[in-house]
């Protein structure tokens, strides 16, 4: 079978302690090649300390048509934000 391999999404941790961030994808046949290709493609300028690769077909995404039902219900729950609360005058370190 001749093709360009599977598409793998690439996540890079730029420094220890930080979250892995999505940077793009690469084509590869198998996990080891995906890791190596991601390393060669996305860390040529000292961008990373750790790489995750995930086959694109294994990523499940929400869909834009569900925008409303998925995300809008959070709009009126401002009590989840710290700035919602008024602290007594003069209180510190809270």
């Amino acid at each position, binding site marked *: 079978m001749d093709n360009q391999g599977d598409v793998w999404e690439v996540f890079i941790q730029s420094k220890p302690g930080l979250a892995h961030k999505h940077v793009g994808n690469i084509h590869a046949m198998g996990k080891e090649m995906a890791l190596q290709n991601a390393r060669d493609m996305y860390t040529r300028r000292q961008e990373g300390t750790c790489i995750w690769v995930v086959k694109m077909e294994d990523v499940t*995404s929400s869909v834009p048509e569900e925008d409303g039902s998925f995300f809008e219900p959070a709009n009126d729950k401002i009590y989840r934000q710290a700035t919602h609360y008024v602290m007594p005058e003069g209180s510190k370190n809270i």
Partner: protein
Amino acid sequence: MSDLDKFLKKIENNVKIEPKDWMPDGYRKHLQGQMSQHAHSEVIGMQPEGNWISRAPSLRAKVILLAKIQDEAGHGQYLYSAAETLGKSRDEYINELQTRKAKYSSIFNYPTLTWADMGAVGWLVDGAAIVNQVSLQKTSYGPYSRAMVRICKEESFHQRQGYEIISHMALGTPEQKEMAQDALNRTWWPSIMMFGPHDADSARSGDAMKWGIKVESNDELRQRFIDKTVQQAELIGLTIPDPDLKWNEERGSYDFGEINWDEFWAVVNGDGPCNDQRIDHHIKAHEEGRWVREAANAYAQKNN
């Protein structure tokens, strides 16, 4: 609100369009064409520069050139990957390139004859590409825009390396200076053709502007490139091969001579000096790699 209205409203409010969003068929098709053309240009563009890796005149020049061409492979990959989000695979795009259904920038159909061409290509070709790409960072399609942001960040050294090469030569021995001027003579017009036909003659530009795929017109971008490049040529004592090139005080820009559109269309339509060579090279590498890809696929299926 209809899907089309929602789409146009997003464009109007500078909200990026994402792969799963509804988009007009024409928008998708235009992007597939433009982005794959852009990707193919990066990949085919590796060949004229690759022509000089083995002969680079210093180890420093060699590693810089190699790193630059490697970046171009990377940029081709980013662009294919952005183009793939439009529902067409890299295999399909590559097939369109090899069967000449897809285009790439005609500048890469010119040969690189001396080391000075490495200077001229970096300085002028990358210089023109950067003007275009900086503008495209604002394009309306999210994956394309993100690819452009990344590419612009990485390309910042490309134009400088080219200018460094050509300025060393322009200020070097008489033979070097001759090579530098000759490279400029051969590369100047093809580089300003890179921005495409005049706005009035560009059939598909209207939709591309309306949909926010292109943010600035061919002529605006071409003018910006010329305006910033003339001083760079003068500084190193090279002459731009255009007798009509003249500063226009009123417009605050350079006037320039008539572009040879016959040559442009001949090269676009396959009759440039290297069209056949570039595509044959691509097909050869692809065919010779077939057994390797097949083996890697077979191994991955057994072991994943």
